[in-house]
């Protein structure tokens, strides 16, 4: 034996080339002949692929232990999102909402409904529980319903959290996820004094947004949202507001219009999200849903469009691509709760419902709203922090959500860039472990990853620059100013 093969996964992407990737996300495209020789122990050091394979630790022809040490170091870096435990704490002050979104995933209640808001005793208990998390960063995110309908409670939670944090000294910030229509100047002046960011929804230009997201008493929510985005930026600063879009049947074929709308409103990024199959979205699936293949092909078109916008000189990020690119091209760990291995449920993000029920994720709460409390961790009135977060249930759930040991995922060449989603698996396939061959999410992720990898391999240098400007989060001007322009002839 001339060399030792180290762990790798592979995908024969076409007749000529094999994509190979290892446990830490280093990858190579290898000519198929070289690959065959590699696995048969026939590759010689003179082969042009040999040094590349060796430098990326796919093989070693000398020492083994220090190579494992290098892999281990990178593995720790890759998994460092696990170090800090739960940082994202979502709180649902109320289920009441003034919107009437077509795809509502949480089954909201009317504005006048009684008994769907949190009380102060509960809020206080939840804040105290949140600060039991060992994470040095705490982000409290208000979800709904429409949280602004219970602004008094938001103020109470913010102030209580700030008070507790005087002693805990963690990095604390707040996010309000709101349709913004009820935002007032007075509220904003209050929020300005605290570390609060605004996350709103914008599904596209006026007709699309109004189609997806009408209010209960007004079919034109668009004008209000745009108006309030401006107001927020005026009071809190331009970067304090971010927006999310959801793709329904109506805007699926018009993603470019959505991108244009985001540009027009001064956003420098968009997250092209496919629909989550929960709540009303699931119930009304027939009218607003679509096949994942349709989404994938529209997404690719929109991504090309966005790349083109960047190439023409405007910095504009597509967030899902940016996340995947960071995983593909950097050695670092990324904090995206919904797509981790092990999954981020409870250990990265957790949600506290208005009634004190704690769920492993927002999707788990959505599932519960349809009557299935499979992912309920317990109630804050009944269980302690340890009982909630160190339960048999959670241990079992997490151990079933490591891609490294899930069928199909465990040998998937793209595993390192992906993540598990037991809640989604359960919701779609009635099985936490799930079956990848029929999983829509698997198909979407894999297709988009392959699309990006192809651009990385075959796209020109300019596209690489665009990708890196997304990863590094700053407009890229590689042509540094020349010290001697003009002086050379």
């Amino acid at each position, binding site marked *: 034996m001339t060399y030792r093969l180290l762990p790798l996964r592979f995908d024969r992407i076409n007749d000529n080339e094999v994509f190979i990737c290892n446990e830490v996300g*280093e990858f190579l495209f290898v000519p198929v002949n070289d690959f065959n020789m590699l696995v048969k122990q026939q590759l010689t050091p003179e082969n042009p692929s040999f*040094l*590349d394979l*060796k*430098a*990326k630790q796919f093989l070693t*022809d*000398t*020492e083994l232990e*220090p190579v494992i*040490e*290098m892999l281990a*170091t*990178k593995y720790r870096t890759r998994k460092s999102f696990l170090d800090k435990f739960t940082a994202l704490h979502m709180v649902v002050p109320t289920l009441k909402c003034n919107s009437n979104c077509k795809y509502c995933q949480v089954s909201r209640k009317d504005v006048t409904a009684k008994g769907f808001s949190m009380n102060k005793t509960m809020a206080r208990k939840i804040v105290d529980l949140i600060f039991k998390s060992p994470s040095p960063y705490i982000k409290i995110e208000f979800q709904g319903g429409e949280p602004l309908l219970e602004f008094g409670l938001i103020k109470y939670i913010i102030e209580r959290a700030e008070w507790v944090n005087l002693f805990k000294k963690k990095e604390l910030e707040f996010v309000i996820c709101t349709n913004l229509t009820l935002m007032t100047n007075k509220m904003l002046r209050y929020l300005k004094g605290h570390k609060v960011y605004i996350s709103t929804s914008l599904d596209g230009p006026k007709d699309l947004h109004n189609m997806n997201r009408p209010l209960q008493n007004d079919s034109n929510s668009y004008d209000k949202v745009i108006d309030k985005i401006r107001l927020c930026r005026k009071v809190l600063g331009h970067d304090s507001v971010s927006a999310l879009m959801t793709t329904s049947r109506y805007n699926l074929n018009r993603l470019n219009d959505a991108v244009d709308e985001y540009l027009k409103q001064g956003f420098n990024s968009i997250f092209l999200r496919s629909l989550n199959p929960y709540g009303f979205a699931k119930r009304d699936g027939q009218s607003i849903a679509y096949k994942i293949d349709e989404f994938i092909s529209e997404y690719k078109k929109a991504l090309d469009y966005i790349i083109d916008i960047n190439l023409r000189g405007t910095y504009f990020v597509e967030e899902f691509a940016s996340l995947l690119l960071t995983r593909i091209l*950097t*050695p*670092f760990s990324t904090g995206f709760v919904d797509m981790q291995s092990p999954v981020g449920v409870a250990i990265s993000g957790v949600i506290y419902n208005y009634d004190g029920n704690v769920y492993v994720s927002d999707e788990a709460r959505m599932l519960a709203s349809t009557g299935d409390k499979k992912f309920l961790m317990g109630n804050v009135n009944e269980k302690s922090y340890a009982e909630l977060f160190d339960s048999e249930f959670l241990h079992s759930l997490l151990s079933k959500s490591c891609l490294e040991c899930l069928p199909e995922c465990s040998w998937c060449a793209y595993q390192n860039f992906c993540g598990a989603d037991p809640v989604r698996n359960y919701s779609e396939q009635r099985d936490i472990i799930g079956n990848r061959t029929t999983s829509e999410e698997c198909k979407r992720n894999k297709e988009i990853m392959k699309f990006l990898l192809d651009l990385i391999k075959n796209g020109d*240098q300019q596209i*690489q*620059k665009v990708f*890196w400007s997304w*990863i*590094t989060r700053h407009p*890229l001007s*590689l*042509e*540094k*100013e*020349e*010290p*001697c322009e003009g*002086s*050379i*002839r």
Partner: protein
Amino acid sequence: MKVLSGSPVNISDDIIGKIAHRYGIFSNKRDLIYTTAERSIPKGFAAVITNNSKEHISASDDNYLSIVCNVRGIDGLSDGDVVCVNPSGSITILFKKGAVGNALFVTERCNCSCIMCPQPPVSKEIDKTELNLKILSLIDKGTPMLGLTGGEPTLLGDSFIKILQGCKTYLPKTEINLLSNGIAFANMDFAEKICAVRHPNLTIDIPLYADTDTEHNKIVRANAFFKVVQGLYNLALLRQRIGIRIVIMKQNRNRLKAIAELIYRNFPFVVHIAFMQMEIMGLAKENINNLWVDPYDYAQDLGAAVTYLAMRDMNVSIYNAQLCILPKSIRAFAKQSISTWKNIYIDECADCKLREELCKSYKRLSSYLIKAIKCGII
């Protein structure tokens, strides 16, 4: 290092001191080497340097005064320079005030034997730690940067720690740039000792010549690669600022981008990466046939490697390169990096308009002159 010489009088041992052309009543004369063109020589100094001959000076009645007479070029000595005067009458400038690239040669021993080493190591030497500490105490406090180099400085072990402490004590504001082959830091205890000095402005620059152990080890002619890797990890754990240097030669010119990839994927914590054109000195000169690659020929590969790192927000530079042969897109990464005494322009550059900016070259070696410059491509 620049060396002057003259005829020694009363010099029995190396004398280290700081050049002074004038003095006041508060001057610590025992640290000063008085430099003068006058005939009368005052007393009390560590030594005196003069261009006059012994017969023409009127030393006061001090028979033990150390003097170097007949020195040519005393104009090259300025106040604040630190020199060593030795019994044979040679004057070595150890520190040139205001110059770029001042460095302390901590030891001449080394545990590598790089095929292109510009300053080939010796196997035995007398310990110079006390001397070096003396030099440190004399160096101008306002010096922005000082190198610690060798040889392999860490071979001194605890004595090296003393020198590092000396840097911190005598030159608290000076940025210290340690050039080490990195092997010693694989020993965590030693790495901890270095970091325990808590020097506020220390950067350790470590060379990495290849992306695989076999190739790197062939170049340094020692079993070093994985020790260097471990050393980098240890220093990173201790939050020490680290830089990586890559000297470009025939052996690695095809792997520049692969080396960049290795660094980004495995050592993204380094604060600086420098690609360096090879100096044709010492062993490099002896082995030149085995090493030489025309910088013009690898300029595009260098461009790819530099762009690769810059895109990733890594702080990358090119050292020792002639600006004119670099692709325009990476010229901004070139740095004035050569010690002043090595920065010599070749004849072909005499009329170059870039000259004042960055165009520079090592001492001319006619047979290895970079062809792009010679044939006037630019």
